[in-house]
């Protein structure tokens, strides 16, 4: 029971930090003005065009594709796999499990391997490509280790040391109703959950902020229409300095 309570508290705390931390960062991005029009051109001239541009960035990593095919390949394999794996995990939280979640289960399994492959590819590049090694801090390596650790402990439970999935599900669905149901004391499971909680906690303080960040990036989300529509924001330097005496501003 001690471990169950510990993990229950850990997940409450991790969730709170993730949500509040992200909320604070996103609020910061949203609150800060984008005083000038700085889309990287050629850029869409309509809102719809911007949605499309953002879509190709978020789902296809368009700019990255232009930049470097290897990083793109490993990057997209990892992210798509991660998305599938996350969706697959919904079955531990939802009751009844929606049909589509049931249907993606087999893909989710392959995805776990793809995730490992993508992460390994990225790590190999980080270690062996001189330029990328130069720009890496210890935290960049640790982040990959953390993600790889999560993927490998997860896989090990599927193939090597099975765990009592039903009990795990009861634990998590219970947490959502503030009930503590016993967590199986299986080392791999505990390690897996510990790493996941760790990831949730560092998310709002790390480069994982690229996830919300991309949507707020003015070079990608601005409409290219400065001549057609005057772009004004309330920043000090815009409003403070005086207008010309002869100004046509009424």
């Amino acid at each position, binding site marked *: 029971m001690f471990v169950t309570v510990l993990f229950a508290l850990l997940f409450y705390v991790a969730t709170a930090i993730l949500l509040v931390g992200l909320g604070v960062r996103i609020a910061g991005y949203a609150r800060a003005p984008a005083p000038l*029009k700085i889309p*990287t051109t050629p850029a869409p001239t309509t809102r719809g065009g911007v949605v499309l541009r953002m879509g190709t960035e978020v789902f296809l990593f368009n700019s990255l594709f232009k*930049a470097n095919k290897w990083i793109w390949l490993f990057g997209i394999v990892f992210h798509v796999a991660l998305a599938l794996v996350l969706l697959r995990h919904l079955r531990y939280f939802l009751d009844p499990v929606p049909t589509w979640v049931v249907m993606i289960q087999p893909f989710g399994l392959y995805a776990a391997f793809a995730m490992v492959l993508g992460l390994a590819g990225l790590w190999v590049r980080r270690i062996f490509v001189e330029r*990328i090694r130069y720009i890496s801090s*210890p*935290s960049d390596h640790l982040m990959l280790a953390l993600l790889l650790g999560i993927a490998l402990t997860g896989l090990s439970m599927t193939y090597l040391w099975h765990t009592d999935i039903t009990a795990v599900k009861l634990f998590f669905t219970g947490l959502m109703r503030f009930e503590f149901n016993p967590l199986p004391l299986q080392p791999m499971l505990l390690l897996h959950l510990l790493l996941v909680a760790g990831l949730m906690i560092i998310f709002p303080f*790390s480069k994982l902020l690229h996830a919300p960040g991309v949507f707020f990036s003015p070079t990608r989300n601005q409409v290219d229409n400065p001549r057609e529509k005057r772009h004004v924001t309330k920043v000090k330097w815009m409003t403070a300095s005086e207008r010309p005496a002869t100004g046509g501003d009424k």
Partner: protein
Amino acid sequence: MAKFETPEIKDETVDIPALQTGVMSHSKPYVSQDKFQAPLGFPGELVDNWKDVAINKLGELLETNRALQVFMDSCVKCGACTDKCHYFLGTSDPRNMPVARQDLLRGVYRRYFTLPGKYFPKLVGATDLTEEVLGEWYSYFHQCSECRRCSVYCPYGIDTAEITMATRDIMNAVGVGQKYSNEIIGKVFKIGNNLGLPQPALADTLLGLEEDVKDETGVDVRYPLDEKGAEVLLVTPSADFFAEPHVDGLIGYGKVFHAAGISWTLSSHASEAANFGLFIGSAENMKKIALRIREAALDLGVKRIIFGECGHAWRVAYSYLNTLAGPFDFLDPRYPVPQHICEFTYDLIQRRALTLDKSANDHRRVTFHDSCNVARASRMGDMPGGQFVIPREIIKAVCNHYYDMAPDTIGEATFCCGGGGGLLTDDLMELRVKGALPRMSALKSVVEEHGVTHMAAICAICKSQFAKVLPYYGFEMDQIVSVHQLVSDAIVLDAKQ
């Protein structure tokens, strides 16, 4: 100045160099002095509590510039941008890789503005702000031409130019400015243009141009200054008034206006399209310079504003002028404010309103250098990418022989000339020559393959930079031409009469 070797052109594409850490750390432009700092509202020398001032300034910029906040947080060190900067390709110094340049500021951001940076600085690459760091800022943030090439390739659109501008703004706030840019801005405030040409000198120059054109063509083409009631105010970089090949472009604009029968004027108050406020990341100063154009337009009672050939000037004009000095509801609403001279000429060509004799340029085989600020920070016409189409269509309308350089060196992927962003100064000659390597390589391959003789550009900085740098790579300085110089040579004046 220290001796340096011009890099060797090996191939059409520049190989990614092996890293040579710190080989460019000696490159620093002259530091500004009190007399150049004061007019811009900056302290004249390093202030005593400079660390606090710098951190406060960074905090203020983060709060007033969403891009900076997002860019500081979002970089995942993927490395996609590492081989995209011409200064890295030309110098091999890894600090010239865009992400490494950003990290010079990001390290400080992390240290003072993020939790992990406060408690585990080593782990996340956070750094204390020290004199050494300030020195690195001064060196490497003056090795970025703010060309935005890196931002094209970054999955989050992180634009190192924005980070360079912010850091230069912070450096000015603590009293460490760059002499070249700040002295020039002072001249604009005092006299009206970067070169410090007063009204009488301008008038003189323009009169001289009228005489030259008359001698050459027998036609009275006017180059008016401060003429009230003209339809168009032309704002052009002051280099157009005398530098080669810029002035041939200005002659061309005059001929186009003449052929179109549209009255126009230059203004001595706004005798400068360039706006170095952009380069130093100072919105206040950029705005002050931009307002001169509004004042001139109102004073002269014009109906339209057209900009001459200048890259960053067109960025400020196209993207910012409306914000900084608008609204322009007193101008003729039928035309975009402002317009680029290329849009104006292109429109005339499409309407067949110009008589052009292409054969006049038959001695030239031409390629076109997309200037970075036009390519990646502005537009021409009403379609995205018009900034690539319109100048090329103009050239093709006035020249029989046109050849593009390799696709990954033009358009949105264009390489900077090596002298943009406030680096066009003799104290940075080594950097300028080395930074030109990718463009020079691309040029060399069209020279060899298609016998290209001239490279046309629509940017005053590009033109000056190439005139200086071409000879280092075995070309002639006059192989760089203005687009409107080509127009000027092909245009047949008064043909209809």
